[in-house]
């Protein structure tokens, strides 16, 4: 007892001695401590999404066939639910519960032209616009009603001149969009050809796709060589830049004469614009527009690959892109999209169409491709959504990393990196134009190294934008899989980024091949994709792939 009390007494004395040292500094320290304890209560943000949603990014089936992996599906469309097949188009004012149609490209334009509407079908704002960025000349603004006139003018012209298959070989431009939509409204087949093809490759493409009409930039190809290779070509429409319009482009070169009809785009528009109807042309809703051919360049395959997309493939891909974005980040009428990747690739095209369908504005710049610098997106326009090739992203990240920084900037970067690791997108200063979404994509037949997690993190630090990194194939409209825009995680330097889970328009599995075998521990094999966005319903992608522990698709 005495011992106990002496112990207590000692303790008491000790405490007293301790507190005897209390001074103004102690008070300050205490205040500091309390503030430090309390400030996260008021200032901490929750992670952008629940961490467990990132830990399992898609749902596998419970049963797998021997020699195959489980079938992987988007969390939006679990097994036993139908995959997303279309846009669920409803007439304005239709009851909320009425089932909508899958729709087609005409519905995309129709919705873009009508502008945003509220729940009751009343207009809720201006329709989006299309801007053409012309290097030094500035920006031209096109109202969608004017573009509709051009669609009608070009559509009528082509139908009258017997065009059945029209090859579109122009950069990202108003002419590209006009021809694509004219094809749907006036029922001819558009053949979208990637730019930068050599004359031989182009004529080869035209031959395989049986194109009878070619729309291309004036002087970009040798007409004579083309006609020699592909005599089936009946007419050529030159798209002439404003600065070269004084020249006579209707002239047919010697020796080729008579074979093909030559016309000039701006003449067609000028002649017919006053006559062409301003509204949408009448069309048979029941009869779906023709398929869309997309010719993509493949490093692996011999020169190019042709994907023949049905309207169903395309709308399924658009619908999946619309629904994959979480509600606060959906594309809306205040957005402006700019693609630094050619719209002739199905992925950028799908995103651009999704933006049109969401009444966003489009900015078109003819500089596009793999070598375009990231900054090119912000010349004279301020897009909020940017699509760029991975090589563009890689270059931008490299410059960003090598930038010299002072102590304060280093501290800011450290803070932002920490915030990303906690699953929170940091807010960056707004001195630069900042997009809010960046799309980039890896094509299955591109053998370049995929972007690393470190590069994707640098991209977030550089741009402050959420990023979707997709895996695409020539036979799948849109993408097969795409990273979650909330997935900011990174583990080690150099680790390749995975491609996220499947989109809701497809499902995939991996099948055994050449010693790459699926097991209970690991899914590994060639990728087989099925679903409404896949040409012919199913395709096998010529790559060995695996599924990570987070249920994301990655190169094996």
């Amino acid at each position, binding site marked *: 007892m005495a011992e106990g009390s002496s112990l207590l007494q000692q303790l008491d004395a000790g405490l007293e*001695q*301790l*507190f*005897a*040292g*209390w*001074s*103004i*500094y*102690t008070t300050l*320290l*205490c205040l*500091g*401590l309390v503030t*430090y*304890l309390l400030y*996260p209560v008021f200032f901490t943000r929750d992670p952008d999404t629940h*961490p*467990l949603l*990132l*830990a*399992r990014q898609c749902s*596998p*089936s*419970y*049963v*797998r*066939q*021997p020699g195959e*992996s*489980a079938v992987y599906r988007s969390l939006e469309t679990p097994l036993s639910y139908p995959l997303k097949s279309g846009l669920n188009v409803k007439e304005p004012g239709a009851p909320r519960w009425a089932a909508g149609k899958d729709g087609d490209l005409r519905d995309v334009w129709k919705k873009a032209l009508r502008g945003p509407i509220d729940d009751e079908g009343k207009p809720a704002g201006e329709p989006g616009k299309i801007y053409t960025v012309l290097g030094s000349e500035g920006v031209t603004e096109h109202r969608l009603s004017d573009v509709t006139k051009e669609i009608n003018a070009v559509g009528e012209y082509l139908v009258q001149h017997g065009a059945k298959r029209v090859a579109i070989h122009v950069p990202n431009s108003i002419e590209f969009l006009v021809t694509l939509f004219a094809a749907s409204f006036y029922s001819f087949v558009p053949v979208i050809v990637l730019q930068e093809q050599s004359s031989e490759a182009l004529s080869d493409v035209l031959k395989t796709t049986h194109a009878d009409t070619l729309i291309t930039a004036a002087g970009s190809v040798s007409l004579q060589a083309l006609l020699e290779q592909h005599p089936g070509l009946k007419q050529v429409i030159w798209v002439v830049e404003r600065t070269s319009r004084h020249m006579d482009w209707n002239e047919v070169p010697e020796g080729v004469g008579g074979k093909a009809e030559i016309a000039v785009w701006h003449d067609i528009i000028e002649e017919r614009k006053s006559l062409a109807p301003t509204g949408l042309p009448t069309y048979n809703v029941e009869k779906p527009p023709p398929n869309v051919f997309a010719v993509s360049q493949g490093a692996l395959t011999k020169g190019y690959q042709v994907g023949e997309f049905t309207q169903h493939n395309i709308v399924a891909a658009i619908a999946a892109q619309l629904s994959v974005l979480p509600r606060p980040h959906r594309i809306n009428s205040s957005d402006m999209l700019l693609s630094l990747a050619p719209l002739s690739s199905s992925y950028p095209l799908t995103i651009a169409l999704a933006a049109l369908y969401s009444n966003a504005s489009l900015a078109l710049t003819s500089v596009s491709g793999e070598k375009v610098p990231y900054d090119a997106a912000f010349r004279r326009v301020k897009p909020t959504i940017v699509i760029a090739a991975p090589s563009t992203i890689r270059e931008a990240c490299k410059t960003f990393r090598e930038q010299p920084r002072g102590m304060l900037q280093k501290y800011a970067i450290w803070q932002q990196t*920490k915030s990303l*690791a*906690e*699953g929170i997108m940091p807010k960056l200063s707004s001195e630069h134009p900042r997009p809010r979404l960046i799309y980039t994509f890896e094509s299955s037949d591109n053998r370049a190294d995929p972007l690393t997690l470190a590069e994707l993190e640098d991209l977030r630090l550089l741009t402050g934008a959420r990023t979707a990194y997709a895996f695409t194939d020539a036979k799948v409209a849109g993408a097969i899989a795409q990273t979650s825009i909330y997935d900011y*995680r990174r583990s080690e330097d150099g680790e390749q980024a995975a491609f996220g889970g499947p989109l809701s328009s497809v499902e995939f599995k991996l099948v055994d091949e050449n010693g790459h075998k699926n097991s*209970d*521990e690991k899914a590994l094999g060639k990728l087989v994709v099925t679903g409404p966005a896949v040409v012919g319903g199913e395709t096998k992608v010529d790559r060995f792939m695996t599924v990570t*522990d987070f249920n994301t698709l990655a190169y094996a």
Partner: protein
Amino acid sequence: MADSKTDTPLPPPTHAQSIASPINLVLFALLLTLVYLRLRPKPPPTLSRAPPPIVFRTFTPPMLKPYNGENNMPVYLAVNGKVFDVSNGRNFYGPGGPYENFAGRDASRGLACGSFDEDMLTKDLEGPLDDLKGLGGEEWEAMRGWEERFQEKYLVVGKLVAVGDPEASKEG
């Protein structure tokens, strides 16, 4: 003033050591610990691995027999050639349940006739499958109903073929 200062006794030790006093040190250490705890990188939450998917198999009646829920085995039963994993309904289909006779067996005829009797099951496991001859329209209807219900509720983990079927030999 200077004189008076020399007269006063030395200030108490608390004043002299005001900044490095023990209590300040303790508080400072506490603050440092908190800063460390907060800034320490935390690993993202991970989920334990999900159970691997079941491999779809081709069963013969003798192969199916052990899947009757005894000895910690899952409970399988076959309806119209499809093998269902009914382990979630162990209380009904497992040992001691009202349907226990069906566990590990071809239950088509029993479910069709609404009977749990032993004589509804195929006796000869090595023989051909029950061809379901002699079932009336209503009984077919009943079996289809069961099949549909099973498909909604349980996983199809394989199919049932007779012993000696070429598909069975593939399985090895």
